[in-house]
């Protein structure tokens, strides 16, 4: 069984993993970081989005062994010293979540949208950039508002 070492939420982690173990399985089952969710098997829903070396990826589509030596940030790592990240805060303020299941993935994707497009986001950009995330509860209306407000505060 291969052994890997990586940094997850600024903590070094070493573990033995099966070659077939996906990054999301490693995070959830071996590290107990259950904030990252699995909503599909086809890389469509985006509930599993995390940051790998600072870039948003779908962790259901990466093998854990392929992430050896890299830095992973999950939703659990976004909160610093008990304070919500501005994007998390904006989702609360604008009611950008209902059941909460897609929320970690959408927030991680949204933080990456800001990295790529800057803090001033128009509605069309946000809607197009959320292509890889499905929410069944909100109709996206408040998610768009939350991303716009969160981006401005980052």
């Amino acid at each position: 069984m291969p052994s890997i070492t990586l940094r997850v939420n600024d903590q070094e982690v070493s573990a033995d993993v099966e070659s077939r173990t996906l990054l999301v399985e490693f995070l959830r089952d071996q590290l107990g970081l259950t904030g990252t969710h699995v909503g599909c098997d086809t890389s469509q829903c985006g509930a599993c989005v995390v940051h790998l070396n600072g870039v948003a990826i779908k962790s259901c589509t990466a093998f854990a062994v392929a992430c050896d030596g890299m830095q992973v940030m999950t939703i659990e790592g976004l909160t610093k010293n008990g304070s919500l990240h501005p994007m998390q805060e904006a989702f609360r303020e604008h009611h950008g979540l209902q059941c909460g299941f897609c929320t970690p993935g959408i927030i991680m994707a949204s933080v990456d949208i800001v990295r790529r497009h800057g803090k001033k986001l128009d509605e069309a950009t946000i809607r197009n950039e959320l292509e890889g995330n499905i929410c069944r509860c909100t109709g996206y209306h408040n998610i768009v508002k939350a991303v716009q407000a969160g981006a401005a505060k980052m």
Partner: protein
Amino acid sequence: MSDTGIGARVQRKEDRRFLTGKANYTDDINLKNQTYGYFVRSPHAHATIEAIDTSKALKAPGVIAVLTGADLAADKLGGLICGWMIHSKDGSPMKVGPHPALAQGKVRYVGDHVAIVVAKTKAEAKAAAELVKVSYGELPAVVDTGAAQKSGAPQVHDVAPKNTVFSWELGNKAAVDDAFARARHVTKMKLLNNRLIPNAIEPRSAIGSYDAAGEHFTLYTTSQNPHVARLVISAFVGMAPENKLRVVAPDVGGGFGSKIFIYAEEVVCLWASKRIGGRPVKWTAERTESFQADAHGRDHVTEAEMAMDERGKILALRVNTIANMGAYLSTFASCVPTYLYATLLSGQYDVPAIHAQVDAVYTNTAPVDAYRGAGRPEATYVVERLVETAAREMKIDPAEFRRRNFITSFPHQTPVIMNYDAGDYHASLEKALALADYAGFPARKAAAAAKGKLRGIGFSTYIEACGIAPSAAIGSLGAGVGLWESAEVRVNPVGTVEVLTGSHAHGQGHETTFAQLVSDRLGISFDSVSVIHGDTDKVQFGMGTYGSRSGAVGMTAISKALDKIEAKAKKVAAAVMEASEADIEFKNGSFTVKGTDKKMAFGEVALAAYVAHKFPSSEIEPGLKESSFHDPSNFTFPAGCHICELEVDRETGATNIVNWVAVDDFGTIINPMIVEGQVHGGIAQGVGQALIEGCVYDSETGQLLTGSFMDYCMPRAHDFPSFKLGFTETKCPSNPLGVKGCGEAGAIAAPAAVMNALTGALGVRDVPMPASPHTVWKAMNGTRRAAE
């Protein structure tokens, strides 16, 4: 209004755990010594099971057990049930085919449960499932709703000739026939209500755990109603008596109806845990399993006609519907196309005569049951498409046509059971017309035409019935359960409060809105109220959340328990302040004695109730805890007007919604932020049905062609504009809060609004849902060119 009381836009208590990855969904739970289950499912729509060879799978690494329908039968467990008895018009009871949790002798749809493999890891269970050899005898399948009753169609269940579950009717046929004979105009349409797959983003999941020492089962499951799950698994499946079965529905990631039902998987996980000696068995659906085996929604084929007089006054409505039930009757399947559908066919209109005939049919497809709106979107679609089309045919403005037919006095008895208690349909229509700038539409249409776009505007003045009740009435209509709700309010000695509710939140924000009610009523801080739900060991009983019932029914139960708390606290306060109970007043969290300056805070009274020093326990019991079971006297009737404005690209057939106005009357609104969110989500699901989503089975083989998010189109952010919302308010008279229900309105209203706008833009009478670009292109260009 306080900043956390009724009507305040309070941020949600529950959000922090969801935002920080600390929520607790079923799949996040892992029990000691847990094993994993993987289901062997039927690859055929219809087949006999000739033999199952488990020998190879049993030898595979990590495998603990492989269990089949024969094992289940040996343990004499009962099958899954449908909890609502419908009688056909000839008086005969509906024809219920057997529904074992693991197939016995026959499979009836692709995804039907054949066996479970239990192994030490998920991967081992899945790999070993490939080694279970099932010999099938393939049979021809019946798939399409309209084909099920044809002579010679394959039979899904022997007990149901012509695949007919029931042939039911409602209303007065003679009165309708008479009105049609007098009509000056008749509008007739064939309308298909497309089959949908609910797709909550959290897949279903279950952990069954058996404690041999205590002969006690625990089930963690993705349920909207854990108590009903316990009741069914106990009383009908016969797994264990209720006191030996705990069901926990922790955080649940969306339901939309699909998590109401008692499914095979959770029953099998519980049973399998006992079979393997008590190690917990966990199963979580892969998305394809959700597509195959979650209960689907809608799937009606309807022929309907509406009769009008010369001024466009509706005289009568005649509706014939065939409703697809799938291969088995799911938990509440039979009430959806009957008492949740035909009873709403009067819409917002004064229709003197209605007759509805509904045939429910078995097919070799997944079971169909309630999905957001459940019957009411189908009814609204029929009524609103007919009304819009009739108005166009009679060359009456569709808004004016509606005005001429609106019900204006309440209570109003419709010809189809419902007694509407309150509403103002003119108010919501006029407000919506103003918000949508209806007067400016011709100019916008002309401007769009200049850009090569076809622009349309469509209305949907919908009505729904929420908080299905009262229990005695629905019992007389065939319901197997009562539909009241329970609440328990526990005041702690320091004056903080826990509310235990039989409602279940899976996105609706009950922890916030219920706390707003308590904070408002007791005058205590919002932060000092906690809401507890979803565990049969904590909450004694409850009916769960669906049908937009938690505000009207669940919160009213809390309100009644709060009445009792106040009454008891007044007794305590009177004793402590040495006053007459009649002189005690309670306001803003303080008990005062009329005409004096004597005063006690709510928390002081709570403490006094628990220390019990200042009153004789023979007269007043110590403690401060009250409960209530609330059974409403009527449904609530939310209603409103949604207006969709859209543009169609002439070249591609792509439809772009450019404006959406929703004006809804939900009665009293507890938290506008949460209510708006419910409306947004409902609209998205309704627009999804109209333009984007559709479940497709191969009509010959019964193979599910839309079995993943790659094939079943889910609405995404770029499919919508921002929505414009408005509200009107008529209070619901049948509950003390005046609340109605808001969870399903969008999904009920939206499909008709979209299709009325789209057919208007294209200048055609009808386009089938989902109106994909290809479908729209064909409607514009004819089928001949589309085939080229």
